[in-house]
């Protein structure tokens, strides 16, 4: 299953619901384009909902890191929501769990963005 995404706005936060696989090729490229597009539109509060992401490889992890640093360097915030156990474990062994701001409740995540 390749990656799919849909975007919604809640209280000034752009929530991107991702599903499927974020791997080298289609998935990681799509994620890069999504984040690039949001930055171009001036959207600086981004919440990536990974609840339905079934698989991430090292390219996908790299793309998440790139998205995080690109948004942060542009003065914005990018947070992650609803990690599956698999993705959670991956971010732990790569020591990225403490780098990302990770949430498991959407309403609380939205509130946590700088007003």
């Amino acid at each position, binding site marked *: 299953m390749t990656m799919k995404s849909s975007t919604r706005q809640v209280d000034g936060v752009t929530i991107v619901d991702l599903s499927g696989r974020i791997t080298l090729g289609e998935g990681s490229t799509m994620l890069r384009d999504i984040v690039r597009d949001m930055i171009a539109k001036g959207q600086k509060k981004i919440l990536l909902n990974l609840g339905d992401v079934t698989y991430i*490889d*090292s390219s996908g992890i790299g793309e998440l890191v790139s998205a995080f640093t690109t948004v942060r360097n542009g003065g914005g915030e990018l947070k992650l929501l609803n990690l599956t156990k*698999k993705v959670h474990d991956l971010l732990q062994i790569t020591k990225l769990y403490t780098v990302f701001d990770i949430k498991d409740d959407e309403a609380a995540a939205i509130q946590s963005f700088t007003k």
Partner: protein
Amino acid sequence: MTAKRVVFKLDSTLDSVNEVERKASELASQSGLDEDEVQRIEMAVREAAVNAVYHGNAYDPTKKMTFAMERTPESLIITVSDEGKGLNESEIPDPLAPENLLKPHGRGIFLIRSFMDEVRIRNLQPGTEVTLIKHVRGQGADGKEESK
């Protein structure tokens, strides 16, 4: 269980990466490993295959990725090799070092080592061969080899 070594020569494409991931997953499942272990093997094989077709062969249509898998009485042994310029293990940066943590690349070999019991990297000059080993229990091989 009748075990044998099976060898495939594949094009340097992402389709080949998906194919070897699927084959490794099937072998791991048939070896009686639990779902978490199967997924770790899938991921390690995927990373090795991506390294082979992308970093090694650079998607060159004239270069092949060789994929071999074997179930012995003690282990599941998977080998992925490419025809690229070779990999110097000592030059691979530590992806957990603070200065590398936010780099977008460089986690593949680290993940392979995290998910497998043994990993051997051999410079073929030219090319790189990565051997991934997972220890398993159960019945074993009769040593036959089959090429495709």
